[in-house]
């Protein structure tokens, strides 16, 4: 077959290009504008080169937030992915109970972020919250306003409660798609439960797990509302993640230049990390490949 080159085809891409330009590129350009210029108001801008970027990178406060952000995403992924798979494996495969359990599991997913934050704020209070009271009376002093560890525990638990269901649902769908013949072959080959998981289920789940990891990473890396409602970023800076810090910079201090530079780098880090996850997980497929 001969390939015909027709540059007129570019016109067909034009509508999408315009749409993306208006929805993403142009708003982003204003941020870019702020990131490279300084202004004293009156809509007058002065070229500032990379100074804002340098300032942001050198800031201990922002480095701290970045480190906390990575730690938070790592903890959340390490808990939610295995836990989600484990729960999906134990769910009933069909019938009334399967539907009921799925509906119940999906409940946290439809609760607004603010509400989730409020629920956990109250839940964790040492005087009236169930969690706070129980831990305080049986174990140790638990105060998310004073103790960084308490604050972290609550923020992580909250995210696990809110989002593990997503991983469960994805993994459940992946498990349902495995043909019965594979399990039959496993039984014939006298595979142990672990071997069935390791060599049949896990490989077949790879696709949905890639999506789960990407979604959970991006979401957790950009988390704002829930910790803001529960801890307000405190105590001190203990739970100040990148978004909370960014909002403080942009709206609290009205430092638009550094905030814009910060935003661009934030965006690039999320993009970079997603690319890394995607590349690593798809490369694992080809490893020891067929060629």
């Amino acid at each position, binding site marked *: 077959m001969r390939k015909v080159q027709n540059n007129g085809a570019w016109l067909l891409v034009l509508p999408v290009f315009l749409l993306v330009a208006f929805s993403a590129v142009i708003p982003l350009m204003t941020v870019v504008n702020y990131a490279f210029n300084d202004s004293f108001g009156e809509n007058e801008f002065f070229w500032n080169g990379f100074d804002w970027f340098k300032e942001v990178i050198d800031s201990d406060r922002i480095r701290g937030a970045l480190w906390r952000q990575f730690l938070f995403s790592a903890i959340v992924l390490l808990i939610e992915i295995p836990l989600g798979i484990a729960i999906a494996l134990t769910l009933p495969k069909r019938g009334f109970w399967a539907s009921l359990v799925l509906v119940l599991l999906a409940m946290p997913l439809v609760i607004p972020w603010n509400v989730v934050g409020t629920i956990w704020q109250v839940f964790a209070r040492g005087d009236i919250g169930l969690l706070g009271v129980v831990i305080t009376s049986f174990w140790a002093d638990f105060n998310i306003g004073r103790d960084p560890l308490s604050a972290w525990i609550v923020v992580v638990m909250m995210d696990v409660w809110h989002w593990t269901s997503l991983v469960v649902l994805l993994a459940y769908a992946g498990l349902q798609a495995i043909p019965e013949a594979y399990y039959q072959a496993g*039984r014939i080959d006298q*595979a142990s439960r672990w071997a069935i998981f390791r060599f049949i289920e896990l490989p077949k789940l790879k696709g949905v797990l890639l999506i789960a990891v990407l979604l959970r990473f991006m979401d957790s890396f950009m988390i704002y509302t829930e910790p803001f409602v529960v801890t307000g970023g405190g105590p001190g800076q203990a739970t100040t993640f990148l978004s909370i810090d960014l909002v403080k910079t942009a709206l609290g201090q009205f430092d638009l230049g550094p905030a814009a530079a910060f935003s661009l780098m934030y965006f690039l880090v999320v993009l970079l990390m997603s690319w890394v996850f995607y590349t690593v997980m798809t490369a694992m497929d080809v490893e020891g*490949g067929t060629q």
Partner: protein
Amino acid sequence: MARIRLDNLAHTYMTYPRDDRDFALKPMNVEWEDGGAYALLGASGCGKTTLLNIISGLRAPSQGRVIFGDTDVTECPTAERNIAQVFQFPVVYDTMTVRQNLAFPLRNRGMDPTRIRNRVQQIAKVIGMEAELDRKARGLTADAKQKISLGRGMVREDVNAILFDEPLTVIDPQMKWELRTQLRRLHQEFGHTMIYVTHDQTEALTFADKVAVMFEGRIAQLGTPEELFRKPQHTFVGYFIGSPGMNLFEAEVDGRQARIGPHVIPLAADYGRPEGRVQIGIRPEFTRIAASGGIPVDILRIEDVGRHVVLRARHGGVAVNAILSEEDTLAEGATHAVFDPAEIGVFVDGWRRDPVEGASA
């Protein structure tokens, strides 16, 4: 290795079966000898796969028992039965190499790595995949994957039986013949009990020492190819086995005579006066075309199929086929089909009827 016995076994997919028709497998007693090569032959949907899955324990029977040797294994899970099964469509473990796939059943048993290595090499040779041993299984073609499945089925030496569920469906014809020969050889070499499910009579008759023909959830007959040919126990067997199948006519039988309409056919023995739907059957191999006797037929066409000639004819609305050797020239005016009395079978409601005791001599 063990003898496999099915004791009053039946299966239904319904919770409350009302009558016989709701059973995918009707109650049956079968015994598969230790080390035998069996084929399970029948049309699609006759219960072959269900029966196989019950033997391997992938499905629990509604009633009856499965016995390996002297042990009742009805309640045992598949893994405990130590049985191998190859499915119709390939199942390979995607993330493993061909070698790891073949070694998987052995590794699950905790076998010594050197022995695994040797055994895998041996099996790879049988299925002709020595060169591809270290490739990932995922990128292979369907028939290569099926060869891996076959290899995994044969890799364990101590299995009670190896079950094949139409394993060569996805394999190309040339390879099909080769693999079947290999399976035969393996059977002779290791003496595993093998049960081979197929709907292809050539495959069944060339693979097996004994063939079980299944029909509507029943084993219509379990016998050697010779027995299936000479003494089919059911009209289905007569019709299903052979090419073309048995000629069947509605008839009235009285002692040593059968009557097809006004035409009288002599029988070799006394069959009494059977009641019900009575049919007589005769193989085309024992049908001659002559000028008189037998029943009159309209000859439709003659097919030359190489070693012999198949004559297609019709008596009323019923097809009559005859196999003639090439030397047999069709005599002028030969318009009657004549049957060899010794080879005529009498069937009542589908099942073969034996001659009346003592009167057959």
